[in-house]
């Protein structure tokens, strides 16, 4: 952290003093009647998920976020992906983001696998011309074979995830945000995914990785952030952080 004069191009993700609060409704009201009925009653409270977080992630770095459930890891990932916005602080992202927060989120299940590849890729800003050269690679990686011409609603959950993963890793993003998704498919496909992730890492992609699987984290993250109750309590080499973290977990 001593280096103050960092070249801006080296930083892929820069988070400065970010605070995120959620308003927790005791029971969520969607309708006006309920909203009026709930007025005056103390039905909502603020829940601070992230407190004044600052972190820089350099280009090409693989960073793991560790911590117990509900500590704010996934919230941070969603903030990085601009799905939600912080109340305070700024987040700067330099580069194209591919999120694997929720795979296959945009699938339209009435359409075929092939059609969904085009649609899903369009969410990453890729047009037909960009997808055409890589579509065979995506289909091959997914191992879906002829099923690619069937509607996605006929897929098993494993097939669904395989297709989604194949798209997400092949869209040529510079930054990958990964949330607990390497539980895709059978052992064979999982191994293939891990290899692909390592390959992407070798290509110099930046990765932020949420996982409870310490072996996975060790195998390809150089740095780990331990988040506890919305604060970063430790930031350093993976081994050291994990050791302390596991120690505290007992």
């Amino acid at each position, binding site marked *: 952290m001593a280096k103050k004069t960092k070249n801006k191009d080296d930083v892929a993700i820069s988070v400065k003093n970010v605070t995120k609060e*959620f*308003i927790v409704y005791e029971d969520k009201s*969607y*309708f*006006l*009647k309920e*909203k009026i009925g709930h007025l005056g009653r103390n039905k909502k409270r603020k829940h601070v998920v992230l407190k004044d977080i600052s972190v820089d992630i350099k280009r090409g770095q693989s960073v793991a976020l560790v911590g117990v459930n509900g500590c704010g890891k996934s919230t941070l990932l*969603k903030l990085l*992906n*601009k*799905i*939600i*916005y912080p109340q305070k602080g700024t987040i700067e992202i330099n580069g194209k*983001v591919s*999120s694997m*927060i*929720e795979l296959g*989120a*945009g699938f*339209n299940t*009435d*359409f075929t696998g092939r059609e969904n590849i*085009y*649609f899903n*890729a*369009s*969410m990453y*800003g*890729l*047009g*037909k011309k960009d997808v055409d050269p890589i579509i065979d690679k995506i289909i091959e990686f997914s191992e879906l074979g002829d099923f690619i011409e069937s509607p996605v609603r006929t897929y098993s959950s494993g097939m669904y995830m395989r297709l989604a993963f194949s798209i997400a890793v092949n869209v040529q993003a510079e930054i990958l945000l990964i949330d607990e998704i390497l539980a895709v498919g059978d052992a064979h496909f999982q191994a293939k995914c891990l290899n692909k992730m390592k390959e992407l890492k070798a290509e110099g992609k930046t990765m932020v990785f949420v996982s409870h699987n310490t072996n996975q984290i060790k195998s390809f993250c150089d740095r780990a952030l331990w988040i506890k109750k919305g604060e970063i309590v430790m930031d350093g080499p993976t081994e050291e952080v994990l050791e302390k973290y596991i120690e505290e977990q007992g």
Partner: protein
Amino acid sequence: MSFINKVKEVYKYRHMLFTLVKQDLQGRYKGSIFGFLWTLLNPLFMLLIYSIVFQFVFKSNIEYYPIYLFVSLMPWNAFNSMIGGGTTCVSNNASIIKKVYFPREVLPLSVIISNTIQYCFSLVITIIAIMVSGVGLSFNALFLPLIILVQVTFAFGLILMLSAANVYVRDVQYMMNPIMMIWMYASPILYSIQMVPEKWLSIYKMNPMTVILQGYQDILYNKTLPDFSSLGITFAVSIVICIIGYMIFNKLQKRFAEEV
């Protein structure tokens, strides 16, 4: 994010926009036999019923009443489905909003574009009907794109507000049903503006849809030039509504993923 950057970003996501439009047009009638034909059959049935009811039961004295209806009801139907689809376009896409980043403006834009395309198809039918019926087409019909532009701009501004508001208060989508029904009868669709009492006329003409529908009636049914000054004012109002709508949408969209 500044407006210019927003435009650039939406442009970057143009592929997504086009796919959404394509999916909407293709997916709407997926699995049905007549498919896209339903887009045209539905309004035709509606026209038939209204023509029968108003011509023979209520004895409307408007000349070529079915054509008058055609010219007025088709744009109204398009407006109605733009508002209907637009109001729920954000809340109905909760699953992708919660999980994927994309400029949220893509959703209302896709509703507008796909409905405009459908509308253009139904206009082809309208124009065929005009020619076959003996009313005939004049060069004034060339102003059609101008009036469509005013209508679409107006609808887009409203959709921006309604879709964002509906995320927070679901009543909006249900409120729109009676509102659209009242609005329909407050516009010159089933009857002509000549039947409106003189003393109400100034208020009646403040309805942007009155001006827009009259524009269609002028160029397609009366075969005259449209009232450019009224249309100009309505267009200016529509732009203002778009600007306000954009500001509201932009302000509210930051919490879409949390509220939806």
